[in-house]
């Protein structure tokens, strides 16, 4: 899998997001900050939707590196129990079906679905959903 950045996802068959755990306080953040204060901390794959919106216009490039052709997407925050609330795309669900509190699981989607070797980014989808 061609991923958008090194150190963001674990190198497992079913990857996880790599957060950071503060060595003293135990506070967990995402992504894992540089430096010695935080240790890498693979995050749980399941959580619940904390909030969401729909991105309805193409972000400016740079910094956005997605395709010229724009299709709106859901962007939200997912609460991973006991860890942290992570910002993420929310996929494989209709804009009218998404609800705060719904159960979600981690997945990965291409930044440009039409690219030959797509760059993969993290996303969450309803538990058990398929594309």
């Amino acid at each position, binding site marked *: 899998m061609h991923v*958008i*950045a090194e150190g*963001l996802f674990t190198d497992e068959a079913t990857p996880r997001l790599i*957060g950071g755990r503060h060595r003293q306080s135990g*506070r967990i*953040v*995402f*992504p894992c900050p540089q430096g010695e204060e935080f240790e890498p901390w693979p995050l749980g794959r399941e959580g619940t939707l*904390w*909030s*969401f*919106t*729909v*991105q*309805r*216009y193409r*972000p*400016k490039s*740079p*910094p*956005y*590196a*997605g395709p010229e052709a724009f299709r709106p*997407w859901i*962007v*939200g*925050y997912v*609460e991973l129990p*006991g*860890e*942290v*609330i*992570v*910002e993420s*795309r929310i996929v494989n669900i209709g*804009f009218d079906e998404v609800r*705060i509190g719904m159960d979600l699981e981690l997945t990965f989607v291409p*930044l440009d679905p039409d690219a030959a070797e797509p*760059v993969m*980014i993290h996303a969450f989808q309803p538990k058990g959903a398929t594309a």
Partner: protein
Amino acid sequence: MSDVYIVGIGIHPFGRTDGLSGLDQGVYAVRQALSDAGLDWPQLQFAYGGSDAAGNPDTMVERLGLTGMQFINVRNGCAAGGSALFSAQMAIKSGEFDLGLAVGFDKHPRGAFNAMPAEYNLPDWYGEAGYMITTQFFANKITRYMHEHGISATSLGRVAEKAFRNAVHAPHAWRRAEVPLDEIMNAPLVSDPYTKYMFCSPAEGGVALILASEKKARELGRPLIKLKAATMRTRPPGSFEVFAPCIDIERGGSATNLASAAAFEAAGLGPKDIAVAQLQDTEAGAEIMHMAENGFCADGEQEAWLAEGRTEIGGALPVNTDGGCLACGEPIGASGLRQVYENVVQLRGDGGGRQVPNDPKTAYSHVYGAPGVSAVTILER
């Protein structure tokens, strides 16, 4: 320590002004403020200036006069104007100076602000994947808030409707035509639940405020508008800010909570003592959330406040009497100072069609900016 008074105000109309740079608009505002105070440029001893995208404010001296004055540039996101004012008042309070300037101006390209991850200590992938967008944060914040506190989409629409209605009477506002509630509600969505009328746009404009010590203010003989408090704070643990790849599960306060509490303490006043308020309303929900974050109501009470018109110009607490950011747009460096300009207009009784009735004696302003900074002022006549 000297008390601080605002003795002169100036503004270049907000919106889009082709042919004038941001700095031009700042210079225009400074000259108007000098005229308002009955002063000449060489009499000013110092300046603090805010601009995010229109160049270094200290270069104004080439246009206004090379007097050798102290001039410090301030860059603090959308709180730049409030931060410039905070800094300027400290120069007088400390006894160092008697007379100085807080100025802000800006000029942004059309379309959404285009922030870069590195400026906010974030990795490049965050922007590449499409997260480096303020509207996503604001929409996520209000969606959660509406869910927790029972705020309806209609309330968002009412805030925008009020903004455009108030701005009809504000000569410096950009959008000065009323928009009916159903048109606001049925307009295209930008970031759900916000329609295009519920977000402000990057804009242009300039504002200048001249500050004086009590002794100097009395000499000038202008209406005595006292700066009772000016505070600026950054975010505490557990807050939820612009450009946040993650949030702590354990929720905390906000930069606004801290700046507001500090301002009320410094002024020796409480929220019930305030007669008029300008609250950061880069989008309709921000005004709603900031009503509670600044202590004017409890979370959820906004629904009744808006339905009953309590934040209208004739209401118990008029909010954003010149149409706020929604109607004026947001030139980052000038925005916070526009709020204080508007408050001075209100306290002098010069608001015309937007004048708050019953002779208001206190006024409050609040700005919020990325990545989690707030500034608050309290004025008293």
